[in-house]
């Protein structure tokens, strides 16, 4: 079907915006990843990638992002899985419940951090475990509610007759939830995971506010590495790190697509 010419112009404007605000900066980032520095823009080949990939602290940051980050996302998912069916069950309280769950997102990070500093021992150098707990709980408090609301939206759309059929087949509430409702709302679960991972990257702000520039090694994230390289004016390493992270993210996304497709084929 040919696109009507009169639709091209309105469609072109967002494309231009996307190109200008996303593709162009992305291209520049990739460019800087291949030059010596912002002050010497001669071609450096893969030198920057080699330096970053071999750097102990970049690896440490990545390790913590996957380890601590995985723990934060996993815990948030668990909390969302527990909260969402509660909202479904008590429909009258669903609206105020959602408001309560979304409220932490609106509270400025600095206010939340001030409170967390009073409750937890946030000297990451002396009490790394307590500091990790502080970060995890802050992440859960701020973002698990959003995940729960997202999942609730998906669960709410499941037709009642499907659930009735499962009940007729002898499935209990937990079995119905795990084997029937969650798979049907699989798209929403995927969206939830994506949002949580996005919030995980944003949680660097709270980490920085709680623990400062150079926290304990257990809390040192890739974002710390990138921020420090930026302030040291090593933009080439910031760009190389960003490209590496992008490649990892695309790899993970590609794997997910392959897995989903295989599952769909198997289901058919």
């Amino acid at each position, binding site marked *: 079907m040919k696109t009507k010419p009169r639709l091209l112009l309105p469609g072109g404007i967002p494309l231009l915006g996307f190109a200008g605000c996303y593709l162009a900066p992305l291209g520049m980032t990739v460019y800087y990843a291949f030059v010596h520095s912002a002050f010497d823009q001669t071609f450096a080949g893969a030198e920057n990638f080699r330096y970053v990939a071999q750097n102990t602290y970049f690896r440490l940051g990545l390790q913590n992002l996957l380890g601590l980050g995985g723990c934060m996302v996993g815990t948030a998912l668990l909390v969302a899985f527990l909260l969402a069916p509660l909202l479904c069950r008590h429909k009258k309280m669903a609206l105020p419940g959602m408001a309560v769950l979304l409220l932490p997102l609106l509270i400025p990070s600095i206010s939340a951090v001030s409170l967390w500093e009073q409750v937890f021992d946030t000297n990451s*150098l002396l009490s790394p475990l307590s500091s990790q707990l502080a970060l995890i709980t802050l992440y859960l408090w701020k973002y698990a509610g959003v995940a729960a609301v997202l999942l609730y939206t998906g669960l709410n759309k499941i037709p009642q007759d499907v659930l009735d059929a499962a009940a007729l087949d002898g499935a209990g509430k937990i079995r119905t939830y795990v084997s029937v409702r969650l798979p049907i709302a699989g798209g929403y679960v995927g969206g939830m995971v994506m949002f949580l991972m996005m919030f995980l990257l944003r949680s660097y702000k709270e980490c920085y506010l709680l623990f400062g520039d150079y926290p304990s090694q257990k809390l040192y994230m890739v974002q710390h590495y990138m921020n420090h390289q930026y302030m040291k004016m090593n933009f080439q390493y910031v760009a190389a790190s960003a490209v590496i992270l992008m490649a990892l993210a695309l790899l993970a996304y590609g794997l997910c697509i392959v897995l989903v497709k295989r599952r769909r084929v198997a289901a058919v």
Partner: protein
Amino acid sequence: MKEQELINALETYMEQMSPSRNYAQQVLSQREGEVPKMKKKATFSLVLAFVLMFLAAATAYALLPRKTAYDTFGSWSYLEGTLYYQTPDDKRATPILEDENILFLSADDQMLYYVTKGEKGKVIRSVMNNGLSLYPERAINTKYNVRDFQMGNGTAYILAHTTQGNGVIYALHPLDSSIPDWKLQGEGWENINNIAFCIHEDTLYAYSTEDGGTLASLSIGMDDHCHTVLVPGLSSLCYGYEKDGEDHLFALSEGKLVIVNTATGAKYDTGVKLPSGAAQVVRNHTSIFVNDDEGSLLASYDANQLSGQKELRRLYVVNDVNFGHGTMADVLPLFHEKYPDVEVVPRQINDSRKLATELMAGNNCDIYLYGNFDLMPTYAELLKNGAVLDLTDEADFAALRDDYRDIWPMMSSNGRQYGWIYNYTAHLMWANPEIAAQIGWEIPTGVWTYADFDALAEKVIAYNKTAETPIFLMPEEHVHYFLSNFDALHVDYYQGTHALNSDAHVDMLRRIVYLKNNNLLSTEKFEDFGKHARLAPNTLMQFCEVGGLGSMGDKTMLLPPVENAQSPRYTFQTQSYLISANSPMKEEAVYLLACMAHPEIEGMGYNGQMLKDKSLYLIRDNSQAIALGIQKPLSEQNEYLLNFALEHAVVWDEALEVTRAKYGYYDTSDKPTIFEMLLNGSLSPEEYAAIRTEQMNMYLGE
């Protein structure tokens, strides 16, 4: 839900009752259409009303009368009782202070002087653009009916009506009312009936209505040379430019913006159409501003365009606090001899992240004054990363080496020169001779070591055992200077190595804890900075940050103890001018720095103290402090000590505030820092050293 059910029921009923379904549908669609349309109209009207209200409020706010003044870096504005400051790089103006009665503003570099109503009449007050008021207010004699006020070269000038005449220009000391005011005089000039004046460098331009309009150019430097020309019809003046050795002013004349040649009196129409109500003309470095009677801005114009001069290339100097006077005022004529087509433009960037971004982007940042920015890299790292221009092999600087003492290590790293030093702060010590005599300790006149210091500590401990009033060795808040010295000697940012995990570092920490445990550290608060600096009470010695010979007087100073008497090193903090490696005008920037470093430039006293020729030393004594009785003339011993320290200097680059590490970036809690935990025994020296080592490994290892 109920409404929908009703509609359905109605539809069914209408179908049943009326043979024509179309009729029923018409009725229903009419009803359905009405309510949404009405809702839409109401919503639209509400939104429109809000938008109009907002626009009206914004316009009203913009039209509120405000006074403005311009300095080298930005603009001051006074609006509804609040004084604001904004640089071109700021997104919004910063409120500085509140005062309902400000009458006049005049900026002098980063200080704003303003006339306001005090308790007993008009006063002159001052404030810096960071809100700090360094000086007390100064009363203005009530005989003056002040009509205008400007600052120039550190002196306040007022145009006032008095019983002896109208429009007389007086000069006042801006801080000290005991110094008599003086009426300006000039050869062949009658200082009366002036209606406008402006100041540029060493010249005051005054316009009076005498003889149909007289413009006087009065030298306010060393002599009272005065040149007058007849120019009719001017009402407001500001400095314009110099061309062919003659100064030109911008002025308002009969509703036009004109240029006046101060040498000949010739008047040229700029051709600019002024807005109605134009009453004042003022300027900053690049623009001309036309204001109304109240001082509110009506229009602005590019000064270069109006002057008809060719557009100049711009060399940007960032964060140079000396721009308006001192060094730069002497340097620019020298610089323009070689580069007449280059305009040197000041900028101020207070945010370290923004500075890093501007430098990497190569965005209007050629030379910058740098030193101890939070989060920013050290000098060594800037040089290593290629962010600054390496000046080692520049011919302009090589030519200066013969004139200067060996202070090049203070602006070099790994043997490469990264900049030109603007100022330094030496970490020396100040002793109490009475207490020293009390305990029988001879104050060292030269190099002494930590072993001597430890022996002194034991001496004080022994003394305190029998003394009626125990004494302290030094203030607790000064012990971190020992760690700064250790960092300066043992952390190499260029090579990426450190010795924070060494026994020497742990020994230093143990020494500090030992002093604390034996009650040798005083915790009493005292003033240790500025002209009110005092020795800590009942304390033998303390560190003293010395910025030059002028701050030492005849205090009993001594060098701090060192690790090795054979190669003593003393900690200095420096601020240096650096040239961005991304600058498109590197040659010009190097030449400008070399001009600033030229021995003939008198602007900076520090230059004088670093030159080999002692006769060029400036600010050897702080004459004001001496006159006020706060300080005595510099002693020879102190001069020797500072010069010795200069020749054995090691620069302390404070990349990481581990010494004062906080719990979080915003310290909202009362929890102790790790250094405080070291002092109170919660943390052992080994644990503290391990923490610092971990952080420094992280910093250097990235």
